[in-house]
């Protein structure tokens, strides 16, 4: 049976998804922040910065205002049942986006790269942007990430081998790239961040894999034993760098490391890093013909 899409109802559900993503820090991220704060030394700048961040997240939720003024690139990963119109989905999301901008849940963030003119409503060429998959469930799953510019600017891509890092085409080489990249980023991406890593693919798909990792809960475990080992090793060692919250020094440089992999060409070995700031704003909506839920 084909899925009946009530466009107005879907649009309103997406508007709520945007509001939640902008104003509510995901539960697992909040837990990670609290643990990070508790671990920092008493009286240290790191502890007080983390405390301020947590207070801000609480205040944002309470007042229903954006956690961060940079409400980022709006990136959608959408999974649809067979037959749902992508054009209808996109026009409903665009409308919800304009509405959310009007209500100040989103900052007008779409700038014409040629003229420099801000569209004023967050819509434009590839804004927002969408990735699609299809499944057998009678549900439209919409995962939304608000990816801030500061952390996007420190996101990075390497190709192996890398002579400077003595990094070969293997997981140890990947490890070296990420240590190097997070060290270069210092506090600029609003540490403690989350490192989403894509191994392989081409330059575009490698970064998509990396971004997709950012939807994983911080406390999940990678089903691939090798990648799981790499995640743990990186998580432990990145927090030895001493960069700390906002680069003020401290124990918490990253809250989590998530790694995914894609097939690659024999000639290419890309390592892509999608860095998310601590204000790791993501929310998932499960939308059926009769119900809507958010996670």
């Amino acid at each position, binding site marked *: 049976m084909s899925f009946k899409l009530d466009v107005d109802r879907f649009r309103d559900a997406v508007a709520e998804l945007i509001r939640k993503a902008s104003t509510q820090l995901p539960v697992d991220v909040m837990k990670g922040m609290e643990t990070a704060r508790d671990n920092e030394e008493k009286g240290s700048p790191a502890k007080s910065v983390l405390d301020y961040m947590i207070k*801000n997240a609480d*205040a*944002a939720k309470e007042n229903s205002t954006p956690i*961060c*003024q*940079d409400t980022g690139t709006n990136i959608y990963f959408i999974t649809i049942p067979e037959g749902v119109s992508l054009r209808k989905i996109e026009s409903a999301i665009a409308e919800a986006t304009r509405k959310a901008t009007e209500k100040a849940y989103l900052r007008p963030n779409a700038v014409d790269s040629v003229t420099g003119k801000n569209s004023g409503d967050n819509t434009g060429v590839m804004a927002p942007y969408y990735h699609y998959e299809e499944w057998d469930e009678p549900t439209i799953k919409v995962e939304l990430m608000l990816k801030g510019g500061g952390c996007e600017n420190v996101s990075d891509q390497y190709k192996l081998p890398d002579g400077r890092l003595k990094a070969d085409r293997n997981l140890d080489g990947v490890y070296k790239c990420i240590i190097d990249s997070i060290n270069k980023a210092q*506090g600029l991406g609003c540490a403690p961040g989350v490192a989403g890593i894509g191994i392989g693919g081409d330059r575009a798909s490698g970064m998509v894999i990396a971004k997709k990792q950012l939807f994983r809960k911080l406390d999940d475990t990678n089903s691939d034993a090798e990648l799981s080992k790499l995640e743990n090793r990186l998580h432990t060692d990145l927090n030895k760098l001493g960069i700390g919250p906002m*680069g003020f020094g401290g124990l918490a440089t990253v809250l989590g490391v998530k790694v995914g992999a894609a097939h690659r060409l024999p000639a290419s070995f890309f390592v892509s890093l999608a860095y998310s700031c601590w204000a790791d704003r993501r929310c998932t909506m499960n939308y059926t013909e009769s119900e809507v839920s958010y996670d």
Partner: protein
Amino acid sequence: MIKINLPVSEADVRKLKMGDEVSLNGIMLTGRDSAHTWLLNDKPTEVRDLLKGSVIYHCGPVVKKVNDEWHFVAAGPTTSIREEPYQGSVIKEYGIRGVMGKGGMGEKTLKALGENGSVYLHAVGGAATLQGQAVKKVHGVIKLEEFGVPEALWIIEVEDFQAVVTMDSHGNSLHKEIKEASDKIANELIGI
């Protein structure tokens, strides 16, 4: 916590040291990418009195207009290093006593802070709701139509806006210190 009323004198700013926590009060101006090139290329006169002795805040806010009056809803700092090519000259040209943003700045700005008696103030990134609440009044906005909301220059009155001095007028930079230490550790971990 050191209370600073804006505009502030050079002598008071020179007393500030890296690591000092400050609370800002008074009128300051937001300005980021488009603003910095405009300030340098066009040398506008209408901002001179606003900037003299005050703070330029690297911030692109979320704003709301209620009954014809602008309000700051969320107003955290943006990454300052993008203004590194311009900041030193802007400080000198307009007599700015504080540059506020996040992530710190480089050698050129550090030198300008020393030469002109100014400091870099670090506000916590992503803490925009609390920082928006510290903005008590929006007195006006410059270049809104041309630059758009995030890049316009907003004239704001703040009360107890908290920040940390991470670069002072005596050549100290917390960012430089942390980077030098972490570079060593990174090289050890990588094995180079």
